[in-house]
């Protein structure tokens, strides 16, 4: 594939918006993810829905 496949989708615990991340962030506990829709910072384990 021309496109990056090693990603996972995550749901923001704040606004419920869904976006995707590089696999390297799946177990990251140092730098929180950033929701592109509401700017909330959170860790992957705080999300109620992960699609991988």
């Amino acid at each position: 594939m021309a496109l990056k496949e090693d990603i996972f989708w995550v749901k923001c615990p704040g606004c419920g918006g869904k976006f995707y991340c590089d696999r390297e962030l799946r177990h990251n506990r140092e730098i929180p993810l950033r929701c592109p829709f509401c700017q909330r910072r959170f860790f992957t384990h705080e999300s109620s829905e992960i699609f991988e």
Partner: protein
Amino acid sequence: MAKDLHTFLGSVKEKPIYFETVKREVDPLSFETAAILKHLQQQKRNPIVFFEKVKAVNRGPSIFPLVDNLFATRELCALALELPPEKAGLALSLEFSKRENDKIEPVLVEKGKAPVKEVIIKENDVDLTKFPAGRFHEMDVGPYFTMTDIMRGEGGFYDVSFVKHLILDKKFMTVSLHYTIRKHLLYILEANEEKNRPTPIVVVLGHHPAFFLGAGALKELGNNDYETIGAFLGEPLRLTPSETWGEDFLVPADAEIVIEGEVIPHKREIQNPFGEYSGYYQPQCLMPVMEVKVITHRKNAIMQQVFPASSGHFNLGSIPKEGSIYNEIKKVAPEVTGVYLPHSGSGRISCYVSVKKRREGDAKQAGLMPFLLSGQIKYVVVVDDDVDIYNEQEVLWALITRLDLSRGVDLIKNMPRYDRVLIDATRPLDRPFPAKNTVPREVMERIRLSDYLS
């Protein structure tokens, strides 16, 4: 008078086909500039767009106007290299390839004579949120700059490459360096990080378009890109000492805006999603972070950007490669007549090659070369020279009517990143094949529409 963005805009401003001004205030962070550019794109209109009144990231009035679409058509790219618009096809790609191998040594000008030093902003006055940086696509995580960066490598060479930056706050932004095909800046950064050293970095947010076309040239690591950019400008690039490192790091004297800073070793921050050239969002990931030390700009500076996944973005990917690919194919397959990286493949992923075929095998020989020369090209389609490779309808027609599926498709496996597909859509020469419909050429030339239709 040295070439700069103002001299170029002055040369195209009077022609509405090339230049439009948006006088009403727009907010780039709320996708408004992107929406205007997208509407124009959907109407197949691609002028340079000058946004006179724009909001900054902090939602106050921006200190700069904004310009986009400088590379939106091949004709504009030809004009940037002082070629006539009718030379915007293969001639432009070949001219690009020629200049890529030329060099013009830069010249040094005093700070006092450098337009980019007219305004100098330092330390606590630095505020990136006063810039009109925007979001372009719905899932973009924040405001981005989309122009070029400069770093110095071991031995002192200057590397200039397109890099995007996510603005984090007044003084910090990410530096988007990926492990993709051209990773010169990443090499320089990693060499410094190994020694726990910060990496000096300069961001250029506006210059003559030939400056940026030169930055897109496919040169080896270690090339002094300032000399290559001079060849694209057709005159020496004027340089001046930076505020932060003096003569140890020279910056373009005729730039619109220069941001000087340091990439902090081993510091990473979240960047993306960001809608990229492929038409999809790049995933959220970690990227290095730079701290801004100084901003210098002209009094009448204009901030430049490239709308991602637009025709301008595609041209910046395609035009730098086509001429070199053509020249390299010509060495092994003199039958080649044209090379085009179409916008449907984002100017990077697919490649059309035309050949004046003399024997079976010519097409495949010509079609293999693009894979070796660009790591991004995934599909190559080879057609006969009676097909206009710049017209995708004609290429598809050749594919549908001439491709013999049993022997015209080759899957090339075990290449880096992904498998490749080579499609030979040329007419067979070793068996009878129908002739293409044509209206007699002599009649086409004799009959002029204006003589028959008012």
